[in-house]
């Protein structure tokens, strides 16, 4: 089923295609059939990397069909719920092997969490940095449900020597690429909101989002929340591997744009930054009315968003936006703002969020060589004709 908007978009494409027969193949290049994922920006179809376009930032809960996908590797070629196993080993008294049915017997907990890829907004860094060129939408907000990781660790008999918890998924490694294995500290692993999630928004996880089970490390970058999880290992030390070092690290001190990262003066990326994005109007929108309605979302990782401000004059003045009533500890807030434009012409709309730690979204995000944690003030250019 198409939504009305998608119907109109595809209708438009079809009309163009029918009227301009010779461009059929060119038009066809602009649509890719990806089961279960509708209207997403395809940054890559292999490995699958899908970005949510700005217009879908309009709901507090992001439906699975619009939830972003970030893969470093190939997705598992086979996933069978009956034969799937999760092992728990390392610094535990009783190593465990659990089936999906075993997980379902445990107490279940739900966390509504804004999951954001560490590289979201990478495309906005200057100078450009390598990697998937995400703009706004490698982020989504969903309710994740499953047993608490700490209950699993307790069942396995966590030893006092266990200081870090490693996750390994079933994704398939091409060539000599290092496997996607990362770890989180024991304090975060035993937090009551860290889950081994089997559901998203009340339904089984989709394949692209980690079926049959994934880690859910709330408030942290998406890379911490291992998909297709099959192995949990408790370690005495932080896991040492490419995706912990040199990957997924931020400089301890701001770098001059273009400078390399000194890994010995860096730290692992963990919690998300304070950030807001404008969902509408979209960039280059032409308004036939002077009434400007701006809306979007804002999130702050482990902190709470306390304020979103909007500027309609390129950042010269800022006015508070109205925050949506739906909220949860790790979830984004919707926001909206309305005002009348003083006249016709070009306007630059901006949004910036402030969180409960007093962090304010900066006009310009700190540059780093991998483009992580971009949170510069969002902006959209519009033209008012009235």
């Amino acid at each position: 089923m198409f939504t009305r908007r998608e119907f109109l978009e595809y209708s438009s494409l079809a009309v163009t295609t029918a009227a301009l027969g010779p461009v059929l193949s060119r038009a066809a290049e602009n649509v890719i059939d990806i089961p279960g994922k509708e209207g997403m920006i395809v940054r890559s179809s292999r490995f699958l990397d899908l970005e949510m376009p700005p217009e879908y930032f309009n709901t507090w809960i992001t439906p699975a069909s619009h939830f972003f996908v970030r893969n470093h590797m190939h997705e598992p070629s086979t996933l069978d719920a009956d034969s799937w196993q999760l092992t728990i080993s390392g610094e535990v008294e009783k190593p465990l092997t659990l089936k999906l049915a075993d997980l379902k017997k445990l107490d279940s907990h739900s966390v509504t969490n804004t999951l954001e890829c560490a590289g979201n907004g990478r495309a906005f860094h200057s100078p450009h940095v390598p990697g998937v060129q995400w703009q706004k939408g490698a982020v989504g907000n969903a309710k994740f449900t499953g047993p608490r990781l700490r209950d699993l660790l307790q069942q396995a008999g966590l030893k006092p020597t266990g200081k870090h918890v490693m996750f390994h998924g079933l994704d398939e490694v091409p060539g000599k690429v290092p496997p996607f294995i990362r770890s989180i500290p024991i304090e975060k692993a035993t937090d009551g909101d860290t889950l081994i999630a089997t559901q998203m928004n009340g339904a089984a996880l989709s394949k692209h989002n980690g079926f049959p089970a994934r880690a859910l490390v709330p408030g942290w970058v998406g890379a911490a929340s291992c998909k297709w999880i099959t192995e949990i290992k408790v370690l005495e030390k932080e896991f040492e591997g490419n995706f912990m070092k040199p990957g997924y690290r931020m400089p301890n001190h701001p770098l001059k744009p273009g400078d390399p990262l000194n890994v010995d003066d860096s730290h692992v990326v963990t919690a998300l930054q304070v950030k807001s994005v404008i969902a509408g109007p979209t960039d280059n929108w032409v308004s036939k009315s002077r009434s400007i309605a701006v809306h979007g979302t804002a999130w702050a990782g482990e902190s709470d968003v306390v304020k979103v401000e909007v500027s309609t004059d390129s950042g010269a003045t800022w006015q508070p936006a109205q925050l949506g009533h739906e909220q949860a500890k790790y979830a984004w807030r919707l926001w909206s703002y309305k005002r009348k434009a003083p006249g016709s012409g070009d306007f630059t709309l901006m949004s910036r969020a402030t969180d409960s730690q007093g962090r304010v979204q900066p006009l310009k995000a700190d540059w780093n060589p991998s483009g992580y944690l971009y949170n510069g003030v969002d902006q959209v250019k519009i033209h008012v004709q009235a």
Partner: protein
Amino acid sequence: MSKLKAPLSALAGFLVLALPVLRAQSPELPAAPIREKVNTACTECHESRIILQQRLSKGAWTKEVDKMIKWGAVVDAADRDAFIDYLSQNFPPDKAGEVMPRSAGSKRR
């Protein structure tokens, strides 16, 4: 939806249904003598769009090519510099951004 637009959309809807499923191929890399070798070495693991969306300096492309060789990309040592030249000439920092396709996902998961 205005009354005038409705019949047009209905016609367009018919055309949508009449069209075969639109499936995109990965776009071709820009033509050059080294293109086929780049294509073979890189798209063994990932599609061309990963390359097409990068906007990097020659220094940054050099790091990328060397990283990919370390990660298993099969590049003849004699071709390494030509790979770097090709990528940095075709995907430099000042080139306009790449427009990406949309997914037309069905309800299947």
